[in-house]
């Protein structure tokens, strides 16, 4: 106690110190301003509704600046809704964003940036940039056409499906396939995966890894998503996922159901249908087409066989006519007669000599006569 009383040093309490800093900062930073930063962690607490993001700036992947930030519940909801309506993505970790901030300094919690707003157009540009970069890289690596060039089997009978069992898209798809079951046997196996949001990339790649191990049991892979709206589709532009799809040994078909820009995953996949229902119709239609082709072949076989038989019949009829014409009986009936000498038909007058015996046939009998005279025509 004595010591304290005698201490000549003047000091501030911590609260006084921090309050002073707070005062100085607030005097210096009177208005809000825009900051470009990457949201490394979002730290959004569902229960309180507040978010305490970690903001960083990186240079060549090294963090060169870092601070805490905060978004109060009401701000968070307003910003997030606006964000979703414009970028089709919620606010998420890993994006670089343009943040409308105010300096906040609290004696208890220290320095942080209070985020009042986030510019969705800037992030939209960033997302589009990622999309374009993925396209560029995949093309450069020669993978752009790779999956699309794989030949779809004539009848895709064994389908590996990446989807969520409880999703509307999956049940729509399975219902259509099952309806055809009595006629077309199609085997499906589900490889469950997240289909939207940040974790979807890793999840889908894992599902594809599993399918590759058993690829000999499948004809193609279907990525089916539906009922999720347009939100959270940026993952389909992720380079790692797009590369896995483009380079996959089986044809990949997508039915991820949305109306905005086509994602890069869809661009590189073998076949894209807008909705899971369209995808199911496509699968079924290849069976129907094959069925129709078989029927047509059937008809062709029948037609050509019938034609052939008809032709043979005509030839036979033609022969029959010839035979009737050639049949001497018919000649005789018409009043002609046939003469023989020594059982040989007499065809010319020159081969007959005077005194020879002719046997002449008529329809109703024959006469035997002797040649009295021969008159030849000068030239026939």
């Amino acid at each position, binding site marked *: 106690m004595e010591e304290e009383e005698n201490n000549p040093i003047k000091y501030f309490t911590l609260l006084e110190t921090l309050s002073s800093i707070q005062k100085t900062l607030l005097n210096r930073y009177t208005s809000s301003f825009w900051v470009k930063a990457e949201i490394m962690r979002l730290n959004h607490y569902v229960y309180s509704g507040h978010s305490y993001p970690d903001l960083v700036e990186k240079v060549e992947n090294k963090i060169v600046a870092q601070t805490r930030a905060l978004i109060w519940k009401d701000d968070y909801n307003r910003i997030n809704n606006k964000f979703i309506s414009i970028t089709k993505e919620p606010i998420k970790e890993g994006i670089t964003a343009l943040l409308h901030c105010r300096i906040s300094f609290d004696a208890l919690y220290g320095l942080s940036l209070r985020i009042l707003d986030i510019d969705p157009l800037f992030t939209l540009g960033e997302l589009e940039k990622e999309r374009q970069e993925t396209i560029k890289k995949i093309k450069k690596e020669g993978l752009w056409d790779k999956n699309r060039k794989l030949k779809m089997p004539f009848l895709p009978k064994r389908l590996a499906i990446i989807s969520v069992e409880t999703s509307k898209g999956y049940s729509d798809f399975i219902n259509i396939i099952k309806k055809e079951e*009595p*006629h077309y046997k199609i085997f499906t196996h589900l490889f469950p995966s997240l289909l939207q949001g940040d974790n979807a990339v890793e999840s889908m790649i894992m599902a594809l890894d599993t399918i590759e191990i058993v690829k000999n049991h499948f004809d193609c892979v279907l990525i089916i998503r539906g009922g999720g709206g347009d939100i959270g589709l940026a993952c389909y532009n992720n380079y790692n996922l797009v590369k896995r799809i483009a380079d996959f040994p089986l044809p990949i078909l997508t039915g991820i159901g949305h109306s905005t820009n086509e994602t890069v995953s869809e661009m590189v996949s073998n076949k894209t249908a807008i909705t899971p229902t369209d995808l199911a119709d496509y699968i079924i239609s290849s069976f129907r087409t094959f*069925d129709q082709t*078989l*029927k047509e072949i*059937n008809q062709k*076989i*029948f037609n050509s*066989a*019938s034609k052939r*038989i008809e032709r*043979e*019949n005509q030839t*036979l009829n033609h*022969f*029959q006519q*010839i*035979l009737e014409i*050639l*049949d*001497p*009986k018919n000649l005789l009936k018409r009043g002609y007669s*046939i003469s*023989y000498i020594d*059982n*040989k*038909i007499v*065809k010319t007058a020159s081969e007959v000599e005077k005194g020879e015996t002719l046997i002449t*046939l008529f329809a109703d009998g024959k006469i035997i006569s002797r040649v009295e005279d021969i008159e030849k025509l000068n030239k026939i």
Partner: protein
Amino acid sequence: MKTETYTQKFEELKKIVKDLEKGDIAIDEMTEKIKIALSLIQECKQSLNTVNEDISKIIEEIYLANDDY
């Protein structure tokens, strides 16, 4: 009766018709040949009919198997 194929019968028929058209055949033989030829025609037509019916039956079976949906 010999079991000749349609082709064999048809070839035989063709030969007879050709010989007859050439002439030179004794009248008794001619009548005999024509008789043979006409019966060959009948046999051939019968074969064609059977084939035709068989094909129709097969095609119909395939259609029935396919149209059960």
